[in-house]
């Protein structure tokens, strides 16, 4: 057996044939779209781009074909045939090194904004908003296994909740924050209740449709939402104190009240700190939820719905709880996003946002908290740093999603749980 493996290892001829075939297909596929660029009713030829792409495809196929002949590659090929187990179980007494790192990280996160520039602060706020969104969607997709493609709708409900609440009811940041979470959860419940009963894949489409409906209504209902022009959002306040240089209506601004110098960063500093607290709270709640019966039920339902129903789980209620908790998290994120931007319009809530949040969850690992936090920062902060690649951002996300599903459908970071040890001295 091992000798045949060794002789197969350098079957270069087969790899060459593979590469040539791939090149031919690349010529057919890329030739017209990449090589012939439409210009009005006429066209320009760009053969060099096609040649470069075909070269890349052939080289890639050649290397891949050679790699798949090595023992390592064969192992990966064999891996496609099996479904890996979802969770890595550790010894019962295992204690993670994270328990030292986490407090340190929290302290750094609390101290960091006082030394950061405004630009850095805004980038990190955006990253944290996506952490919140990723955590929420992670409950829905990662833990409960429900594919929600209209997640951005709940985000929009939160953001527009602040804008509309201010405009029509005179509500501020603090009163909208819980209300938006509630409203988003309610919307999730209304949508989810009839839909969650059905076969899983349909849920993806219904939520996709729902997300588009919300966006189109926001876009078209000029009188109520301002249409494509959007709405302005009030700045957040701290115990009624404003963060602007001068307060409206004869009030006292924040810096005068505390007798400190005015700093334009105050507003973002405030948003950052509140956001950080909310993220920590959500992290804690999620961590507890996964150990509670309902969290266990989510994961069990994800792995085998029929078995769970046979065991007497109410699958609709269990799924609904995941769906609503996920939705309310998005509502919270929406409020922060609106006050961070000071302005909302429907362009922020396209399907691409849903796909981006999904990419965060997929990349971070379904169900893994650490992975999602890391992925959220990588996917939102990296584009800020690599402005020149902005054009290829979406392409990269798409490729990453496909590759991740092929290579590691459970995500980069494996979900690990401590095993349970039966207590001593208790009758079985």
């Amino acid at each position, binding site marked *: 057996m091992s000798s045949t493996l060794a002789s197969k290892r350098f079957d270069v001829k087969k790899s060459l044939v593979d590469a040539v075939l791939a090149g031919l297909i690349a010529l057919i596929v890329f030739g017209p779209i990449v090589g*012939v660029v439409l210009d009005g009713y006429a066209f320009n030829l760009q053969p060099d781009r096609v040649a470069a792409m075909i070269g890349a495809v052939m080289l890639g196929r050649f290397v891949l074909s050679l790699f798949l002949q090595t023992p390592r590659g064969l192992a990966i090929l064999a891996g496609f045939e099996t479904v890996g187990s979802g969770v890595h179980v550790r010894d019962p007494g295992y204690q993670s090194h994270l328990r030292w790192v986490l407090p340190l990280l929290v302290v750094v996160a609390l101290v960091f904004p006082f030394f950061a520039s405004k630009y850095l602060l805004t980038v990190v706020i955006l990253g944290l908003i996506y952490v919140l969104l990723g955590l929420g969607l992670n409950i829905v997709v990662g833990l409960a296994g429900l594919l929600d493609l209209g997640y951005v709708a709940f985000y929009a409900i939160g953001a527009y909740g602040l804008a509309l609440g201010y405009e029509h009811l005179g509500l501020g940041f603090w009163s909208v924050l819980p209300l938006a979470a509630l409203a988003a959860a309610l919307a999730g419940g209304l949508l989810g209740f009839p839909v969650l009963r*059905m076969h899983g894949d349909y849920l993806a489409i219904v939520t996709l449709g729902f997300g588009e409906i919300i966006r189109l209504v926001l876009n078209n209902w000029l009188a109520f939402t301002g249409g494509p022009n959007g709405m302005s959002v009030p700045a957040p306040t701290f115990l009624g104190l404003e963060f602007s240089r001068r307060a409206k209506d004869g009030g006292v601004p924040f810096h005068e009240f505390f007798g400190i110098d005015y700093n334009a960063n105050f507003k973002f500093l405030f948003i950052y700190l509140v956001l950080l607290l909310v993220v920590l709270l959500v992290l804690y709640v999620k961590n507890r939820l996964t150990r509670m019966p309902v969290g266990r039920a989510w994961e069990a339902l994800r792995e085998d719905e029929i078995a769970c129903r046979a065991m007497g789980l109410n699958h609709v209620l269990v799924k609904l709880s995941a769906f609503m908790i996920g939705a309310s998290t998005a509502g919270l994120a929406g409020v922060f996003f609106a006050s961070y931007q000071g302005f909302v319009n429907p362009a922020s809530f396209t399907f691409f946002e849903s796909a981006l949040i999904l990419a965060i969850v997929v990349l971070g690992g*379904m169900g893994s908290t650490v992975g999602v936090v890391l992925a959220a920062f990588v996917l939102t902060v990296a584009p800020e740093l690599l402005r020149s690649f902005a054009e290829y951002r979406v392409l990269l996300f798409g490729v990453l999603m496909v590759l991740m*599903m092929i290579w590691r459908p459970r995500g980069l970071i494996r979900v690990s749980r401590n095993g349970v040890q039966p207590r001593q001295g208790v009758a079985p």
Partner: protein
Amino acid sequence: MDGIFLQQMINGLTLGAVYGLIAIGYTMVYGIIGMINFAHGEVYMISAYLAAISLAVLAYFGLESFPLLILGTLLFTICITGVYGWVIERVAYKPLRNSTRLAPLISAIGMSLVLQNYVQISQGARQQGVPTLLEGAFKLNIGEGFVQLTYTKVFILIAAFVGMALLTYVIQYTKLGRMCRATQQDRKMASILGINTDRVISYVFVIGAAMAALAGVLITMNYGTFDFYAGFIIGIKAFTAAVLGGIGSLPGAMLGGLILGVAEAQFSGMVNTDYKDVFSFSLLVLILIFRPQGLLGRPHVAKV
């Protein structure tokens, strides 16, 4: 009122025929591997680009007669889009045959993003167009107004009908069709009986892409303009049509397409054009809630 109704009926039927063609791709793939092919709308979008490219190239070589132009464009677009269908299946879905249930769905979304952005980068983000190929129209006087039935629409209806008839023939009476139906009914059993099911799945993707290509050429002829984002909305609507007719059922997809097209056209004629997409998506949500098996489909039964 009558005039508008009849005019919208004509518009709706042509639009619906095209929705039906795209819905076939969704319904066949769902029937055979139980997966929603999110990238199918993007396949349609690519075929619209291919049609425009083919028209531009043929015109460059001085071809002017309509039958030759349209024949060349159809042949070119359908062949290349078919290859796209095959490649997408090979790259994004085939390695995931035995993976978790969510994996192919997410992979399909990734594929859809890739295709959209790839076309945007290589062809530019601006709207593209094709010249009018068939001038002229039948005009019917009704009451105060008149109803216009352009030759393009007549051609679309005929071409869509021929395409559907051809597909029905292939599925019902050829060996390939028998293989497809057998695989759809029971994949494991079909492979035991000597059918190469992996290959049948590839064929299904190619057939779906070819139908989407036909739709792409026809829509491009009718509207004249498109952009890289066009596949998204039409994709959801075609999926709505597939669900309306009963997913997995071929006649259902065609019927669903026609019904959705007419309903949407009547809605935009009588109520409001701005909300016609909202109307279609609401229809989708309502159908899925109240009759997920659609008009001609069978209810989903989970087996262990």
